[in-house]
């Protein structure tokens, strides 16, 4: 067991990031129409203004030249300026949005694993029973319901009709209060977005952990003979929990990417000021540098998460060699 596996994973991640950069560079140049038209956003523009823009973005330089300039800029965290919010640098807007998305994401992932474990273990314990079938069906139903629609329904019920929770944003603006109240305020604003994300995405964990439990039970017969005196339930839980660790860690990377996707919908329904809303906003205002910046940031988050997962895996499972 060596570092080779880890190095290989690292290089794959680096290549993915590079691919994201290439996609970002190539897309505006491959698509019909000139990138300059997109800058103008459909506004009426004179020929001189057009030439000035081409000059400014260096669009008449050779393609390789443009690419190197783009790459160098990106490495210095210069992602250009937002079209719609012109003087604002894209990177600054991205960094401001990132913590909000991470808050939603991490909380929701913890809940997804928790709920997934609870339901999955139950379902697997009673494998083949009606309860099992019911829980599985339920998870499939949630899994196949559009996330934005779940968010809309939650917003309607808890925000509009019952009025329990705030309708939009991440905090109350200009709230003059102590830390505890501020934290509570942020928590209240995050409940519905987190709930929508969790409902729509816990299913995969349930299925993974159910299968895990089924496996544990099959082993159980052998264990039973040796471990007399331990209660059935305890054995199940400690053993199952230990066994669940690896599949859950393996799946975390995939699941994070899915939740990231979900954040676009959730944040746009709840006007939550994270990366997803930024992306939706950029779609509406056709803010192309911002849109690409968001894509890059999403890629970065996915790659970072995968790295963490890989490292965790490396520690957890000494058998890995590649």
């Amino acid at each position, binding site marked *: 067991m060596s570092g080779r596996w880890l190095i290989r994973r690292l290089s794959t991640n680096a290549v993915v990031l590079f691919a994201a950069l290439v996609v970002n560079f190539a897309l505006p140049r491959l698509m019909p*129409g000139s990138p300059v038209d997109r800058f103008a956003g459909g506004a009426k523009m004179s020929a001189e*203004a057009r030439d000035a823009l081409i000059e400014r973005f260096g669009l008449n330089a050779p393609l390789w030249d443009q690419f190197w300039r783009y790459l160098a800029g990106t490495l210095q965290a210069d992602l250009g300026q937002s079209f719609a919010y012109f003087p604002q640098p894209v990177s600054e807007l991205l960094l401001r949005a990132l913590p909000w998305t991470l808050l939603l994401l991490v909380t929701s992932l913890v809940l997804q694993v928790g709920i997934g474990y609870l339901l999955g273990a139950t379902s697997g314990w009673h494998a083949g029973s009606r309860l099992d079938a019911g829980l599985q069906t339920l998870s499939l139903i949630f899994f196949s319901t559009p996330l934005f629609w779940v968010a809309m329904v939650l917003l309607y019920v808890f925000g509009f009709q019952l009025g329990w929770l705030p309708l939009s944003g991440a905090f109350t603006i200009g709230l003059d209060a102590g830390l505890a109240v501020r934290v509570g305020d942020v928590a209240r604003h995050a409940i519905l977005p987190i709930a929508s994300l969790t409902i729509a995405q816990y299913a995969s964990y349930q299925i993974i952990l159910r299968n895990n439990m089924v496996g544990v039970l099959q082993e159980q017969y052998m264990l039973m003979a040796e471990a007399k005196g331990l209660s059935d339930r305890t054995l199940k839980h400690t053993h199952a929990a230990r066994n669940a660790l690896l599949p859950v860690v393996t799946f975390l990377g995939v699941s994070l990417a899915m939740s990231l996707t979900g954040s676009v919908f959730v944040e746009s329904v709840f006007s939550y000021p994270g990366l997803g809303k930024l992306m939706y906003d950029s779609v509406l205002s056709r803010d192309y540098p911002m849109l690409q910046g968001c894509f890059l940031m999403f890629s970065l988050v996915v790659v970072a998460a995968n790295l963490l997962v890989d490292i965790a895996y490396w520690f957890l499972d000494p058998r890995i060699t590649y």
Partner: protein
Amino acid sequence: MRNSAARWRLIRLAACIVVVIIVAGSACTEVNPRRLDIGWSESPQAGLNPFLARNEGDYLFLGLIYEPLCMPMMDGSVEPWIAESWEFDADRNEWLFHLDARARWSDGTPLSADDVVFTFETIYQGDFPMGSTTKAFVKSVEAVDAQTVRFAMNGGFAGALSLLGGTLIMPRHVWAEVEDVAQHQNAMPVGSGPFVLEEFQPRSFLHVVRDADYWRGAARIDEVVIRVFLNLEAEVVALMKGELDLMPDLSGSEALIPPLEEDANVEVLIDRWPHIFYLAPNHRVDPWGRKEFRQAVDLALDKQAILDTSLAGFAEMPLMGYVPPLATKWANPSVEWRGVGMTEAERLAAANGLLDDLGLARDDAGLRQTSDGEPLAFTVSSLTYPSYIRAAELAKESLAKVGIELTVQVSDPETLYGGIVFSGERSLDWQLLVHGSTLHPDPDHFAREFAPVPPNPWDNAVAFGWEHEGLQSLLRDSRTEMDDTRRQQMIQDAQALFAEELPVITLGHRLHPAAHRTDKFMGWNPAKIIYGGMVHPLGSIVNLLSLEPI
């Protein structure tokens, strides 16, 4: 088992903490009762740099911090602001603005003529959008003394006062140190307005607090917050729940108005607006270049249905002369749509008659054809706005009844406007367009768009491929006509010709709905209509200054 018991205890503890936090949070989410919360559904584009201001939101946000020379009113009159008075010579070649001596910036520096000169020079040098309409007419701007500014014009410019006067004035002593104005974020704005910046989060909110030393007398409300909503329903509900006090612009979400009207604490105001909603044909595409064909189409369209559905009825029936009825001084009321007062059968019969006379006979399926046997089937292009799409769909329904087939095609603005219609290239790539725009109350834009000098691809006449010597020279002359009565006559005559010629087929004029709560502030004064940037009067600074907490 010890282990699992401990785990349960931990889980229970965590749950308790969460509950306590949430309860604490919900218990004290009170904010200052003297704070005005405004809902806005589109973020401003310029951030805090007024030189880059482009749309209504920019003026709504920036109008709290910066001020113009004067406030042009909806009815055409003009209210003094930084400039307490103005004068001009007989041929209007020279304008003098006399500044109010009390005016000062929020950092205490007095506002002087130098600031005004600096503002206009910067705008013209940098070609910023704020000055795009006046640049060609202004020869020079200079300070006569600390309180007087002189504008020298290149010949007469009929729309000068309302266009020059509406420009936001910037402090020289702050901006002179800025290296590149076009790149400046202006994170700590110094303005002359009644509010100063507290916090700004792009795309989320703007929070300003009252300037206690404001030169015209401090506002009676303490703070103003403008919140940006992506979800219009959530915005309307926030108003109904009292999280918001004012929604200055409900257009585009007309379907949400009825529930607001039922709310006892909310007042909905529907105002007329200088908006025009029209179908623009490409005159290069046969037979759209023929006047009689356009007239037939105009008659066949069920405009009432279009306005009732695409704008939920919040619209006025059209005046066909391109000047919206709101501009009472300029609009020619006699050019109303010819279909008014006719039944559908009468309209269709008249339209069919015109089409038959053009020799566009129907085939077996009822579809008309040109004399070359080409079927009359066209594509109507629309942006992705639901109101445009609904209008295009209804136009399709109407024209099908006279044997003209339309296909609705949806596009984004870059492709449709930037890449095709207004680009000067690919001019044959489109056939019919649903379009709407908010006009300036002064009819200078009418002449500029339909009789451009020099002709530019981004002016309507050129983009639509339309020419008419008589009408266009009349419009050109009106731009430099300094006598108000004669200018009025020319504009009215031009409208009569326009309604006959139909370079574009007007569908109607959108009304402007706005809503505000009546239980938190009093002094809402919508009668005092101000046309600041383009925002609704309720959101204008003049109105906010008159508000008083209950």
